[in-house]
């Protein structure tokens, strides 16, 4: 049975899918059990460079490392590539900073039921950003292929659509069944940032609730920055290693950032601050007002704690926790 490339998308492939090149990198990566605790400012300065390809964990505004997105904008990174995988509020922040100019699109410019982000839209419509179209699962599978150390993985989505045409996927035939399959190239991000419930000083991580694509993301990425709601001792990790979702070998930096997903949701910790997210969306409609808004909420904040303080602080977080845990539902 012949195997052939029947068709291929015209979108640019931003990252090298060659597993041997990635293997050379991972061979040299430090996997010693070492203390990796640092400030978020330090971690972004050290591990996120202009031109890097970055991926953000969580799902848009759920367990998303918002603090890290702010810090990337504060540090004025430029020319990043960005995996627009379930990207909502994270994309909104990074668009405000115009930090990226290459975008793998799965879900972008929207905040789901909350509506579209003017800022993200205008930026993507501006022509300043090179785009390749994918789907949420296609990007998950591309990360899975990278995690597996293979250059591509077959899938059964995309066929027959413009999403395929504007992707960098290929259409091949199956060597066993002769069926048509999409071939999705491995995606090895230069750096990933993932927000978790708890981590030890070496980077062993736990989180509760849906994993989204974060485990494959941590495996696939050359560098991994962890922001954690709280630090826990290593003896707790060792007491129950089944609960470790990301092991220390993968991790380059561990940053303790309380409320690090605010104004998004952190499962079992705090619900999203819908009023503040609306404030983002509404202020974006007026460029002057949005500049002010960004100055107040991003550029003038020395860190995430100040951002939380400026938007209600501990009383607000108390309310959001009550909402998240459905405190009054009994």
């Amino acid at each position, binding site marked *: 049975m012949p195997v052939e490339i029947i068709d291929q998308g015209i979108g640019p492939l931003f990252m090298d899918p060659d597993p041997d090149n990635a293997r050379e990198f991972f061979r040299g990566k430090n996997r010693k059990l070492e203390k990796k605790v640092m400030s978020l400012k330090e971690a972004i300065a050290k591990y996120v460079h202009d031109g890097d390809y970055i991926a953000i964990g*969580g*799902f*848009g*505004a*759920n367990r998303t490392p918002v603090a890290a997105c702010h810090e990337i904008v504060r540090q004025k990174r430029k020319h990043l590539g960005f995996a*627009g995988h*379930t990207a*909502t509020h994270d994309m909104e922040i990074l668009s405000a900073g115009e930090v990226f100019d290459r975008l793998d*699109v*799965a*879900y*972008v*410019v*929207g905040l*789901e*039921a*909350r509506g*579209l982000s003017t800022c993200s*839209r205008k930026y993507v*419509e501006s*022509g300043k950003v090179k*785009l390749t*179209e*994918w*789907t*949420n*699962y*296609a990007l*998950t599978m591309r990360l*899975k292929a990278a995690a597996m150390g293979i250059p591509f993985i077959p*899938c*059964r*989505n*995309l*066929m*027959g*659509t*413009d*999403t395929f045409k*504007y992707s960098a996927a290929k*259409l091949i035939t199956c060597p066993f069944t002769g*069926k048509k399959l*999409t071939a999705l190239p491995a995606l090895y991000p230069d750096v990933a940032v993932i927000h978790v419930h708890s981590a030890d000083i070496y980077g062993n991580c736990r989180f*509760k*609730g*849906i*994993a*989204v*694509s974060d*485990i*494959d993301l941590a495996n696939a990425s050359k560098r991994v920055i962890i922001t954690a709601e709280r630090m826990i001792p290593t003896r707790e990790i060792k007491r129950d290693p089944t609960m470790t979702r990301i092991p220390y070998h993968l991790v380059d930096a561990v940053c303790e950032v309380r409320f690090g997903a605010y104004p998004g*949701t952190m*499962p*079992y910790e705090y*619900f*999203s601050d*819908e009023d503040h997210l609306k404030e983002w969306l509404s202020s974006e409609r007026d460029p002057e007002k949005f500049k002010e808004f960004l100055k107040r909420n991003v550029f003038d904040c020395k860190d995430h704690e100040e951002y939380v303080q400026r938007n209600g602080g501990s009383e607000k977080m108390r309310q959001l926790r009550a909402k*998240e845990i*459905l405190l009054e*539902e009994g």
Partner: protein
Amino acid sequence: MADYNSMELMISVASRELEDGSTVGVGTGAPCAAAMLAQKISSPKLVIMFEAGGFSPELPEMPISVGDSRTFYKAAMAGSMGDTMEYCSRGFVDYTFLGGAQIDMYGNLNSTVIGDHARPKVRFPGSGGANDFGSFCWRMMVMTPQDTKRFVEKLDFMTTPGWLTGGTSREESGLPLGTGPYKIITNMAVMDFEPTSKRMRIISVNPGYSLRDVQDNCGFELLKADNITETLPPSEQELRILREVVDPYRYVIGRG
């Protein structure tokens, strides 16, 4: 007869399609409302799955995001996006609801751009999980208000596959066999797809609308089933549960 708005009607009609014990991949908003309504009326064992990894939750309220905590509240499993999509790809998921800025006569959907891809007039979110659900789930349904801007002869961009160019084109494309668009539920009518041509076909017209209204508000010629009925409006029970239990804050039905 009960007083209701078009959103309440679409959700009620959609909910009746979800038989007990079937599986549905849902997003936020109307689709989620339809699934919740079905569970509370005819299909208590309807299996609800969310793209981001929530399996069979007890939804305490409408989720704001397909990844927020409500989507795995008292769930059978809090898994991953890979888990959910593997279920869909493996053939485990019967229904999904999708939408878009444009739909054509074959049920193909555009949620990516209006205008040119590189320099669009309007950029939309893109596929998200829509192309995945639309490729993998057995039966894809759409709930949408109907007008000539939305129901178009030609999409600016085909984000998610319907019946592609009709006929046998979908099965020839390599997409999983036996999958495809099933019902299109609008404020004016309910459509299915003619089995051979795979073109959109009116099967029932909603109370208060005429066949003429339906065609006039569609940018392409609609086929007509042999006996077109009147869409059964929301029952008192459907409306009561929808308003009191499913969407008390009218997040969704308020938009009808």
